């Protein structure tokens, strides 16, 4: 049995990946736990059963690494993501500078949501910090941010491409240039307990493979 703690934004992709893996490995059963990366890290720290941890940012992975709660050699990048601007607005929005024409803009809360932190960095780097002050609506997580865009409560939100792809009403208006923010990385690692679990190890290894990569791509992640 493999217990996996996975950042909530990977939920749909991971569900499919696990499904495919379980078919080819009939003996393996999974216990999936989806929540915010910080919550997951806290749970692992407090001894929650977890063999594999996929974080939505490097910060929480490092936190566990420092505490020797993950098997350091097993840490590697699982997937990459891009920031896009998505919205249901009818205005023509093609670049960061166009954002100043809009009313409200949704981003994740920069302090607690990695996507928000990246979005803020991109805004600062493009010199729009002043122009957009007061227009930014901070959401608890990316999904909430996207929901605002879907409902039209904001004109558009800076979200991950993977999330934007699932939207029904909001379209991707432009991709935020990669030069404006650090690379969005989803690191994966076996926990100390997971390193002793053969099933977990084989799943960890299998995640590198073609089938997993294909599914990730289908959901909009990039894999390098």
């Amino acid at each position, binding site marked *: 049995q493999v217990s996996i703690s996975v950042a909530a934004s990977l939920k749909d992709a991971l569900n499919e990946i696990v499904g495919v893996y379980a078919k080819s490995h009939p003996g393996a059963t999974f216990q999936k736990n989806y929540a*915010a990366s*910080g919550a997951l890290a806290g749970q692992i720290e407090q001894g929650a059963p977890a063999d594999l941890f996929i974080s939505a940012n490097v910060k929480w992975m490092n936190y566990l690494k420092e505490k020797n709660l993950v098997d350091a050699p097993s840490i590697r990048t699982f997937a990459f993501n891009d920031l896009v601007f998505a919205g249901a607005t009818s205005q023509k929005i093609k670049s960061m500078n166009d954002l100043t024409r809009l009313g409200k803009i949704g981003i994740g809360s920069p*302090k607690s949501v990695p996507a928000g932190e990246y979005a803020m960095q991109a805004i600062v780097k493009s010199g729009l910090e002043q122009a957009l002050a007061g227009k930014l609506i901070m*959401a608890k997580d990316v999904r909430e941010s996207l929901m605002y865009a879907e409902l039209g*409560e904001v004109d558009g939100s800076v979200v991950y491409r993977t999330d934007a792809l699932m939207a029904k009403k909001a379209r991707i208006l432009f991709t935020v240039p990669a030069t404006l923010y650090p690379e969005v990385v989803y690191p994966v690692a076996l926990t100390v307990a997971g390193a002793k679990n053969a099933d977990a190890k084989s799943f960890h290894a299998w995640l590198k493979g073609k089938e997993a990569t294909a599914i990730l791509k289908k959901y909009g992640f990039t894999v390098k």
Partner: protein
Amino acid sequence: MHLTPEDFSAIALSIKIAITATVISLPVGFATAWLMVFSHFRGKVLLEVLINLPLTLPPVVIGYFLLLMLGRNGWIGVFLKSFGIELVFTWKAAVVASAAVGFPLLVRSIRLGMESIDHQLLQASRSLGAPWYDTLATVILPLSLRGMLAGSSLMFARSLGEFGATIIVAGNIPGLTQTIPLAIYDYASSPTGTAMALSLCIVSVALSVSVLFLHEVIGKQLEHGGKA
């Protein structure tokens, strides 16, 4: 314990929201409790269910419902917009969220108090020439004060802790809509913020404790008072 200016504005905002939510809800809660206790009408069961909804549903769901209703396309939102009022993503939305979540607790407290009012007092008042609304104002209201007090202290405390619904309808905008729980959430989401989160927790607890005690004191006075 060190608090940043942002924290202070979160504290001030929390207090403002909790007080506003409580003050606004009190008359509505009183009226609702009165309906539940003293009148017989069709759909009473429905009202009961409606009032207790926010108790049962996860706050996030309540937040989502509120957003749907108050938002740009929601029917209340559209209605308010025609008066130039926008609620969503302002502190007023946080007030609405707090009010919705605390309302069942408030109504329950007021009801408990009202149910113990002697019906003969109401009959006496009516037969002395008071129309029903007069009786409501001069007998039921003063005799419900203790229940309203208890209910509003509960509601105030609950407001201070409200997170799930608030963050959805009000957003988490520092200085504008960021209340104590939202600030705590922000701090707690990064590995380095725990100490700050703790400080805010303590502030929050201190606040609600002082309200609880204030109300206990007023309650005692009400009991002993009985105007001369």
